[in-house]
């Protein structure tokens, strides 16, 4: 028992070193807290005695459904400390309040009103710690007609507009399978937290509550479609493999290759002012199908829309060209010729990407509890002076009880045992 837990790895060089975060969050805020930790903050995950509910979220390591094997838990909580603390019991709330006096941030995602019912809302906590930044991340915001509505990722994606823009005309709206409303609201929470932190610094240490809405996080991810409605009264909707230009389906941007797909905006640039570069490429390969004639070149480079049958012919030509080649070869050559193509990568291909390897992106995280180490995504930004750092694996529930309660609150092992017996920790 005496040996201290192997995680988190210390990170005194991070820009947020010296700040402390209490993390009460679910899917909407755990990644936000993790990012603050990787910037140097001491992040303490607060879990109920039987472990945080998101430990039940799949997928699981080798399919083994148990609380320390959730890859969701690993991904969102890597490098945090964990204490158990039963907030439904007054002694648990008392422990939490004491921790709050030593914290800079609380990140929480409860339904508005729940924290107040526990006496742990911002109004109560700021009396204990006026410098506290309380990041409250919810489905729709702290107040308003939908503030108590239930939501998971797909609800945020629908109510926040993304699903309307996504999808295709035949099959209707679509959600991205990797949950984007959760990703977005976590990242927005981090910006809000940093903004409030900076404000605290210039306002004599005054903290505040940051009220973050998942719906609103999706609202600001709508590209130019809200101005299109505002100015032209057109609703832009899911274009499938094409692009939607203010309600008009544009030319294809996705083409199948010999080994997958490639993203090549506006038929790879074959229709547009830079078309000659692509026409030359097709012609050099003997696959231009006549598009290299002076007449076609003039029409393809003019900014005048082509009739549908001609667009179809151009798209077929590029589809045939791409279909017999590999995506990374296509992208390399297109880029050499000045066209901004990219390959469609699967998760495996992202991990195998030459670019990310060339940037020394991936980190290997040791799970001494399993006797194995695994590849995790690396720095989302490279800060020159105060680097990002991965802090190690995700904690087991209560792994840091002795350390945190002992060092921060001066609770000795005897008292901790008493708290255990009273089902507080």
């Amino acid at each position, binding site marked *: 028992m005496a040996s201290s837990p192997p995680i988190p790895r210390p990170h005194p060089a991070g820009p947020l070193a010296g700040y402390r975060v209490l993390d009460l969050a679910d899917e909407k805020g755990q990644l936000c807290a993790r990012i603050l930790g990787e910037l140097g903050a001491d992040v303490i995950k607060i879990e109920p005695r039987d472990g945080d509910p998101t430990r039940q979220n799949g997928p699981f390591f080798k399919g083994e459904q148990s609380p320390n094997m959730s890859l969701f838990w690993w991904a969102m909580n890597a490098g945090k400390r964990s204490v158990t603390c039963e907030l439904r019991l007054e002694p648990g709330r008392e422990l939490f309040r004491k921790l709050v006096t030593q914290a800079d941030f609380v990140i929480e995602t409860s339904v508005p009103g729940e924290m107040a019912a526990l006496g742990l809302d911002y109004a109560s906590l700021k009396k204990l710690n006026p410098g506290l930044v309380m990041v409250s991340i919810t489905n729709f915001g702290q107040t308003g007609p939908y503030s108590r509505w239930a939501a998971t990722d*797909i609800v945020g994606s629908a109510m926040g507009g993304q699903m309307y823009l996504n999808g295709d005309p035949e099959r209707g709206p679509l959600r*991205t399978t990797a949950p984007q409303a959760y990703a*977005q609201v976590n990242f927005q929470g981090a910006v809000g937290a940093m903004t409030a932190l900076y404000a605290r610094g210039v306002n004599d240490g005054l903290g505040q509550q940051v009220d973050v809405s998942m719906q609103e996080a999706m609202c600001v991810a709508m590209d130019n479609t809200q101005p*299109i409605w505002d100015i032209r009264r057109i609703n832009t*909707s899911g274009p499938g493999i094409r692009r939607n230009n203010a309600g008009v389906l544009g030319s294809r941007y996705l083409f199948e290759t010999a080994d997958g*797909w490639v993203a090549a905006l506006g038929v790879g640039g074959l229709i547009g002012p830079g078309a000659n570069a692509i026409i030359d490429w097709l012609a050099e390969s003997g696959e231009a199908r006549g598009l290299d004639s002076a007449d076609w070149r003039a029409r393809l480079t003019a900014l005048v829309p082509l009739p549908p049958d001609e667009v179809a012919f151009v798209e077929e030509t590029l589809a045939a060209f791409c279909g017999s080649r590999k995506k990374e070869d296509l992208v390399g050559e297109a880029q050499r010729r000045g066209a901004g193509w990219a390959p469609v990568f699967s998760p495996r291909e992202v991990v195998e990407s030459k670019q990310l390897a060339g940037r020394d992106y991936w980190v290997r995280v040791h799970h001494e509890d399993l006797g194995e180490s695994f590849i995790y995504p690396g720095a989302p930004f490279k800060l020159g002076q105060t680097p990002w750092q991965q802090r190690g694996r995700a904690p087991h529930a209560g792994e840091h009880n002795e350390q945190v309660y002992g060092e921060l609150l001066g609770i000795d092992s005897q008292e901790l045992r008493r708290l255990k017996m009273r089902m507080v920790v």
Partner: protein
Amino acid sequence: MPGLKKPFEGLRVADFAWVGVGPLVSKYLADHGAEVIRIESMTYPETLRRVGPFVDDTPGVDNSGYYANFNSSKLCMSVDLKHARGPELVKRLIAKCDVVTESFTPGTMARFGLDYASLRQVRPDLVMISMPLYGQTGPWADYMGYGHVLQAAAGINHLTGWPDGPPIGTGVAYTDFLVPHLAATALIAALDYRRRTGVGQYIDFGQMEAAVHGLGTALLDWTVNGHEQMRMGNRDPEAAPHGCYRCRDGRYLVIGCATEKHWEAFKAALGRPEWCDLERMRRRWQRLNEQHEIDRHIQAWLDAVTVDPSRPEEVVEDAPDVPADWRFTTDEVLAHFQKFGVPAGVVQSPEAMRADPQLAHRGHYWFLEHPTMGLRCYDGPAFRLSETPAVLSKAAPLLGEDNEYVYRELIGLAEEEFIELLADGAME
């Protein structure tokens, strides 16, 4: 609150960034009180100024709603960096700035003598962030593109679409609206470090490296389990029921039940039809195998209970057994599900969002008067600070609108020199 400073009040930002990512990073700073100066060219106007929607369908650099929405609360100066005096003038401005942001192809700033090593000579505590697609180094450092293709390279396309269909992506330049938040987080963290220590720094931000942090569990599922996640339409690998269903008025309802509690609420909302109590529906992992049947039941139920207000007499044959007075509009059926605590929503169009009472309550949309575009709608941020909330202080700037202020007051040119440079094309 009176007497409080806005979060970034007193900070000045020289913003060379363009299109989506960079302007959205500096929008956070501008809307929270920083003086952000967009540094633009008249010869090669910022891409978004040339992309619509345009007011009255009239293209013009001061007429784009696309540009406007991302550039609230900012100032704009114009400069020709290829003019003999361009880089020097800009450098004099940067000596009075706290932050430089840019998103050019790596090497571009250095060509004008405006790389970090040069700029810290004139401003030692400068915080500078560069944010091209793929970062400053690596084999793809010079690759071009933007969010529409980066979403493909970052794995978003692969995970968006129907399982039997192509990797269609999100319909928008998606990563442009995902990665600015991480860039802003790093930038503000660096600013807070500088506030406490006086030390500035350079941030090498590669958009792809940030974007892949938005893939949920997909990366670890591959690196740990060797399992490649796949696009699943509107289903979810971990939750059922989970989908998007058409209501009788043509709008779509979504339901996403992640927990047993959600499932119990869902059963109650449906009126406990028999199929819900089948043994093979009992546990989440069982229901994941029954999604085809679940979707069929939900669609039939919605066909029976929802109405199209424009065709109220329409009746469904073979309707499931639901109480005769259960006839709902789409909004009512959503409220019905929510009353029981079911995670449910409707797929909202841009138009619907403008009319959304929750967003109105939040004051999400701001209406700002622009000199040429008139009163236009702008997005506020997704978060509210209780004491120092965002204030969208003005509409987007006209191209070169603040030249006189920037060149005369900040750079310190005398009137004569200002006019000379203007005449000589330095501000083109």
